[in-house]
């Protein structure tokens, strides 16, 4: 089982690698895609704003998009989740466009949203395996397909999508790598489902 953590620009890729190692996975952080053909799954990290991240992603966009649409399992974390979408109205540049929907600023009084929230799993969705998770973000995604919404949470009474799932495409707005033991267990679960197809 080899996990490729693709770090196109600014991310906490090394923290994610450490958490994946704690979940017993072999994880490589790379700034290019030479390991893509041998990877069993892809982790797309990212922090900060959509625009600069999408720009940094641009040279690799088609190769990544092709791999994911052909079935390479992917877990997008925080901005990495937002990069699964096409674009953000507030930023130029495109994401991977493997999910339809848009990214908007979180319309809350207190921003960035930083802290721990309890997650609410959507109706007819499988359990997430963790109840609480750590967030650090100012933007949120709005998937066009409601069936892709796995879980939501609320900050300053604004509810937003914090986990989504469509086939082998997973995205989480929270940071499993910073959500203590339950976060590591969530990563373990992603790896297990990837392994079992």
């Amino acid at each position, binding site marked *: 089982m080899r996990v490729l953590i693709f770090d196109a620009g600014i991310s906490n890729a090394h923290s994610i690698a450490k958490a994946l190692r704690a979940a017993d996975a072999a994880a490589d952080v790379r700034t290019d895609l030479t390991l893509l053909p041998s990877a069993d799954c892809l982790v797309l990290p990212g922090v900060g704003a959509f625009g600069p991240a999408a720009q940094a992603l641009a040279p690799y966009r088609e190769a990544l998009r092709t791999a994911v649409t052909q079935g390479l399992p992917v877990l997008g974390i925080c901005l990495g989740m937002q990069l699964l979408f096409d674009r953000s109205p507030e930023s130029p540049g495109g994401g991977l466009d493997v999910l339809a929907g848009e990214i908007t600023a979180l319309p809350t009084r207190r921003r960035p949203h930083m*802290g721990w929230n309890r997650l609410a799993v959507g109706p007819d969705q499988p359990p997430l395996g963790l109840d609480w998770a*750590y967030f650090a973000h*100012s933007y949120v995604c709005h998937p066009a397909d409601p069936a892709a919404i796995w879980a939501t949470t609320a*900050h300053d009474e604004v509810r937003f999508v914090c986990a989504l799932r469509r086939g082998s495409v997973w995205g989480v707005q929270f940071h499993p790598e910073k959500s203590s033991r339950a976060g590591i267990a969530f990563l373990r679960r992603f790896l297990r489902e990837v392994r079992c197809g």
Partner: protein
Amino acid sequence: MTSARVVACLDVSGGRVVKGTRFRDLRDMGDAVELARRYEEQGIDEIVFLDVSATLEGEASILALAERAAAEVFVPLTIGGGIRSLDDIGRALRAGADKVAINTAAVENPELIDAASDRFGAQCIVISVDTATVNGRPTVWTRSGTVDSGRHLLEWAAECERRGAGELVVTSIDRDGTRRGYDVETLAQVADAVGLPVVASGGAGGIADVVEVFRGTAVSAALVAGILHEGEVTVSAIKTALAAAGLCVRGAS
């Protein structure tokens, strides 16, 4: 609903946790990663490592500490103390910090906040503000709380927000290490003045103080140090008391 965060602050020197009163008289309180792991098991929401040695050796050792901690402790880690440049920030983040706390360098060179936020994202740029009230006016102090910059606390807080900071840690110099409770009045003013998350710091003497600062202000988090390190209270006891007071917290029993 976002929960009230309890943050453990570990003043470190050479990988060891030290604690002093009003920034002086340092005492050894144990291995930093060991303590951080224990707090994570107890349900701490975040950990701050503050390098109080302020030397070049100190910088190397806190980076080594971040590297070690990030492999074993899976809650957000902030590094502060001696962060002066974009290079310092990049090194801290690469070593495993999730956020950096900038204090003196931000006051002396506010453009650093804009540049750091642009390059690394607002969510990892924490501005640490030491404050003391002189003649009724709360001002911002630098150089480990020894130099009064003359800047008004609320003006500086607003400027930090405008320049792209992601969070403010506000430490009352008069209360730090004294266990007389947080400076609730000043913290309430800051938390109302900005839209950034504000972390209360300085003066926690017991569980009641943590409850009081969350009930009396709009702060997002409270920083605790000595009372945890000396084993007087546990993280879970704090969480349980916060939940009993009607606050949303993670991991209350």
